[in-house]
């Protein structure tokens, strides 16, 4: 079927006029009709193509193990998830840890802490640490993407857990990897960042630990998270790389690291979609189009 010239012509046409998603959406719909769902195939799909927004939350929930692959288990497991969520919320209210004016993101953090047995004593709540801030940052972004608070909590929690379990060991190596690819693409920029001392101070934490939450607007961010949730943390390197490449001229004109840090900490929000698209292309170029989730 891949050799069908008419089909290829049609795909090329769709691609040109912006309907590239039509065929992808159809093939995703076929995958979603499977019972049980083939999680491996869904991961591969999500690695290769952008998820249509109407199916994104559903696919994320399956990939993160919130929804089971068997559709006849959905009601039972969904009930367990709801009770778990409600029980935690009720206890935190009884303990007066939260009330109706507590921001949702803080509610999610306290719930997560209670589940992880690291809820501080209410009489001596310490200021938020770096890890709490990472969690809150991801929560704020997820809240913009997911409307239902229960879905939102489960997605934040499982995203956070899966990310740290799967990629915790890889995270320290991502800055080196970024330098490697920057050297391939734009050695002059790498050199400039090295000489000015900015390289060591790039916003690695918001980029890699928070997966660009707070850096990219949610509309662009969710396309990056599609790749992370389906199994790649390498994509983060290429998004960072593409940000650097996109602002090459501006960055080359900056000689003080703190100016670079300030600029990158607050990048213009207009063309982030194009940045993500180019980052995904670069990622495919260097890492291949994944047949399996890597």
């Amino acid at each position: 079927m891949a050799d069908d010239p008419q089909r290829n012509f049609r795909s090329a046409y769709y691609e040109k006029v912006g309907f590239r998603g039509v065929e992808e959406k159809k093939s995703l719909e076929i995958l979603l009709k499977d019972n049980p769902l083939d999680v491996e195939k869904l991961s591969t799909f999500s690695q290769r193509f952008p998820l249509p927004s109407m199916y994104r939350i559903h696919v994320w929930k399956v990939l993160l193990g919130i929804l089971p692959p068997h559709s006849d288990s959905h009601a039972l497991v969904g009930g367990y998830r709801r009770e778990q969520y409600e029980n935690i919320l009720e206890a935190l209210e009884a303990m007066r840890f939260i009330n109706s004016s507590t921001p949702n993101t803080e509610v999610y953090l306290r719930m997560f802490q209670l589940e992880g047995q690291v809820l501080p004593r209410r009489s001596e709540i310490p200021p938020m640490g770096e890890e709490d801030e990472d969690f809150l940052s991801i929560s704020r972004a997820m809240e913009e993407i997911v409307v239902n608070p229960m879905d939102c909590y489960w997605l934040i929690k499982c995203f956070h857990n899966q990310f740290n379990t799967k990629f915790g060991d890889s995270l320290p190596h991502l800055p080196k990897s970024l330098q490697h690819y920057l050297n391939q693409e734009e050695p002059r920029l790498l050199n400039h960042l090295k000489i000015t001392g900015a390289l060591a101070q790039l916003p690695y934490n918001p980029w890699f630990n928070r997966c660009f939450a707070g850096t990219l607007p949610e509309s662009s961010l969710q396309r990056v998270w599609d790749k992370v949730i389906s199994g790649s943390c390498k994509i983060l390197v290429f998004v960072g790389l593409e940000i650097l490449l996109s602002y090459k001229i501006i960055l080359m004109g900056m000689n003080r690291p703190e100016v670079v840090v300030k600029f990158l900490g607050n990048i213009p929000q207009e063309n982030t979609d194009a940045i993500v698209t180019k980052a995904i292309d670069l990622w495919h170029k260097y890492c291949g189009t994944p047949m399996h989730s890597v």
Partner: protein
Amino acid sequence: LLEDTKIQARVELGACESRYVAVKRISQALNNELLELYSLLDPPAQTAARRNGGRGSIP
């Protein structure tokens, strides 16, 4: 053998269920005790507690 597996699964799930119910009762009792205690401690906050008591009431 399939039928066997299904029965075993049901038994295990039932055991998990009853363990859950037991602890849930304890937590419910502690929850009530806490609400009561708070209402004794600072009456003004009592109103707030009752208002927030509705579970799932995240704005």
